[in-house]
């Protein structure tokens, strides 16, 4: 028995993970875990948690769970970033060693992309899309919950790697053969492949779900060309997900087969070909960066008209540009490996296709500017993020164009120029967009408004910190500093700029803390949103109370044009004014179910077993998955009825029902 325990401890906590930072993290997690369990037990909230949240199929609640996960992951990824920057502050001074640094930049990149940006956009999809298209729910509510739990357990599997067994350490791109067992014998890379596979299934399902929702569930009268622009962006994003995630799944699965079952795809010998992984990864990876930017574009297309009090400029060209970005996004992936010798014809072709994306993107930028032109701009926090986005993203896009100039990329590839470029678009585009959407839709999601003054403080810290961090990194790129170095020697002239950059990162960190303070403060003291329409909005979600009731619309609206709610308000004819008691019918709603949670848990158990090659556990998890699927197949009792009286009562309490 002691021998077994020793084995267990040695496998789960191998010597090289017993370092101060990791022990600290272990301790933190333990304390937080005990704290949560204690609070839930103390206030007898277990049942509440299970019945109201863990089993929910309501898209609005799923949105909130996505949001919590995303903010937690922003924190985790941000702490990683601060560790990276601290290590690089001075030459040859390294608070964390190479081993940990490699783990930290890997988890930073992976978490920020897959477990921060993705759930964040899904939070907004879930919170907004059904309301904007005038629908009671998404097309497949249960699949929606399944997506969430697959994502959540994928994220948990990825995060426990830091405390159990050791994190992946081959970059967020996970290029072989570095990820093969010969070079990476620990469990880290298995964690990486398995957690991304699990979360990836969830993401693919989300893509299908929202695509079908938008295709089939729009309110009558909402033709394609009357959809709010955010809906268009989600439609194109979902299509991107559907076509982009399968190659990732294949790339990850093949790597896993190599690691676990000895196949020879990406090995050094045996005719293995690592470049195929690179090809498949970027077949996914490039569309992925548009997956995270298009929703941000959609958000800005809602925020700008609202706060400029003016219709969106160039609706048709906005749609054309979204759709062409969607198509072009599939045709550019080779720009991530121009330097893999595919030859001048291939490189020239993909260089040009990459440049082409600038055209539709530019159209959007100019359309936003001209939406503001002739408007009346109210500078709220949501609008401020948009106003920071335009200059920031244009610089990031411009430096991207310089990378697409093939010979220039020969020099700039994998240098800090690239690091600066992608933070410029990821933070300046995606994160600013998501934060803008967060402030904009927060009242709709939670029923109160985030304090604007505090929000502005967080905003300025974040934006100034951003430029101080990443502007110097362009110059570091020109100085020839390559990425993923855990430290650097003195004498290359890299130290001043690195120090400035580190300083900026801490300013950003302060901005994040201000943001969290803003949320926590507003939870208690924030102004309630009683009208349901705090910003004088233009689209249907603002026609509902905040937060929207479980059934969203007591009666499905009929749509006559773009900005339907704005038109209603202009004609003095809002929905609330003419909902008569006899319009309200008994509704059929999806019933809560524990299956999605159990499914996610089973995947988690199976994934954990496979990571450590503990086959009984892996098989147990697999059986759990089968059991969940069987349960789902034979479960016909998935609907509940919401009586018309209850709905009338709710609507009346909001003052939305005619007497």
């Amino acid at each position: 028995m002691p021998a077994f325990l020793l084995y267990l401890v040695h496998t789960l906590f191998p010597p090289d993970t017993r370092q101060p930072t990791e022990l600290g993290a272990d301790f933190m997690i333990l304390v937080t875990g005990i704290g949560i369990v204690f609070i839930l037990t103390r206030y007898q909230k277990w049942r509440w948690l299970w019945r109201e949240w863990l089993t929910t199929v309501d898209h609005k609640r799923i949105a909130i769970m996505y949001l919590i996960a995303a903010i937690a992951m922003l924190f985790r990824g941000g702490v990683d970033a601060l560790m990276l920057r601290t290590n690089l502050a001075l030459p040859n001074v390294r608070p964390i060693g190479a081993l940990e640094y490699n783990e930290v930049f890997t988890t930073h990149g992976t978490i920020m992309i897959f477990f921060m940006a993705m759930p964040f956009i899904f939070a907004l999809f879930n919170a907004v899309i059904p309301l904007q298209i005038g629908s009671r729910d998404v097309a497949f509510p249960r699949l929606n919950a399944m997506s969430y739990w697959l994502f959540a357990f994928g994220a948990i599997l990825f995060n426990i790697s830091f405390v159990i067994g050791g994190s992946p350490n081959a970059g967020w791109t996970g290029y072989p053969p570095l990820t093969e067992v010969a070079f990476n014998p620990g469990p880290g890379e298995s964690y990486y492949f398995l957690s991304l596979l699990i979360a990836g299934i969830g993401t693919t399902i989300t893509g299908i779900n929202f695509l079908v929702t938008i295709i089939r569930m729009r309110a009558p009268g909402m033709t394609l060309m009357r959809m709010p622009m955010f809906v268009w962006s989600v439609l194109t994003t979902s299509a991107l997900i559907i076509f982009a995630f399968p190659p990732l799944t294949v790339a990850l699965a093949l790597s896993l087969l190599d690691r676990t079952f000895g196949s020879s795809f990406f090995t050094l010998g045996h005719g293995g070909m690592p470049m195929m992984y690179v090809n498949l990864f970027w077949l996914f990876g490039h569309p992925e960066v548009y997956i995270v930017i298009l929703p941000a574009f959609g958000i800005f297309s809602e925020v700008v008209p609202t706060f400029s009090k003016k219709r969106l400029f160039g609706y048709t060209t906005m749609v054309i540009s979204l759709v062409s970005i969607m198509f072009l996004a599939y045709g550019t992936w080779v720009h991530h490996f121009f330097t893999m010798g595919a030859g001048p014809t291939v490189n020239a072709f993909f260089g040009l296709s990459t440049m082409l994306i600038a055209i539709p993107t530019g159209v959007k930028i100019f359309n936003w500017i001209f939406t503001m032109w002739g408007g009346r701009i109210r500078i709220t926090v949501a609008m401020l993020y948009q106003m920071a986005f335009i200059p920031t993203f244009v610089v990031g896009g411009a430096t991207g164009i310089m990378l697409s100039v093939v010979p220039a990329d020969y020099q700039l590839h994998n240098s800090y120029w690239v690091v600066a470029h992608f933070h410029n678009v990821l933070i300046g585009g995606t994160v600013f967009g998501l934060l803008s959407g967060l402030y904009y839709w927060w009242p709709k999601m939670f029923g109160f408004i985030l304090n604007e003054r505090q929000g502005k403080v967080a905003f300025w810290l974040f934006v100034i910190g951003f430029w101080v961090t990443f502007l110097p990194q362009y110059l570091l790129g020109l100085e020839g500093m390559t990425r993923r170095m855990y430290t650097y020697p003195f004498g290359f002239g890299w130290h001043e700029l690195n120090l400035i950059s580190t300083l900026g990162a801490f300013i950003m960190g302060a901005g994040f803390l201000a943001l969290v303070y803003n949320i926590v403060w507003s939870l208690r003291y924030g102004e309630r949103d009683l009208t349901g329409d705090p910003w004088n909005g233009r689209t249907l979600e603002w026609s509902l109370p905040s937060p929207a009731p479980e059934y969203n619309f007591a009666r499905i609206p009929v749509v006559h044009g773009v900005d339907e709610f704005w038109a209603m308000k202009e004609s003095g004819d809002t929905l609330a004014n003419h909902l008569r008691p006899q319009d309200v019918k008994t509704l059929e709603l999806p019933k809560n179910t524990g299956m999605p949670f159990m499914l996610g848990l089973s995947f988690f158990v199976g994934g954990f077993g496979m990571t450590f090659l503990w086959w009984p556990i892996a098989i147990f998890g697999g059986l759990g998955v089968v059991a969940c699927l069987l349960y789902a197949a034979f479960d016909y009792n998935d609907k509940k009825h919401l009586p018309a009286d209850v709905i009338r009562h709710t609507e009346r309490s909001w003052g939305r029902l005619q007497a």
Partner: protein
Amino acid sequence: MSEGMSEHSEIEAVEPGLEFLRPKFEVEGFPWAQVMGYVFSLLLTFAALLLVVYHAMPPILLLAVILALALGQAGLQLGVFMHLREGRGTAWQLLPLGLAFFIAFALIGTSIWIMLFKTGVS
């Protein structure tokens, strides 16, 4: 088991104005389309097999011809058996599928192009 009794209530349940939603049942008869589809699918397969076994053409041409036969077979399955053009919102069935075919072939073609292209500094 009750031979399809359960449908009748549902047929009555169709709302006025939505009569087209009334379930359409196939008239009893013989599944000619399916049988012909089956025969053609066998023909296409054996054509490809025979061409290859007897090396009927130069390799490149042969490859092209058997791939074309496979495509024909796919079209047959989609049209006859998967009833691709029936249903509601068929545009939304055809569009993604067409796109998927395009992307699938582009993906395979470009991967070959990128990975097998002979490079060299000359």
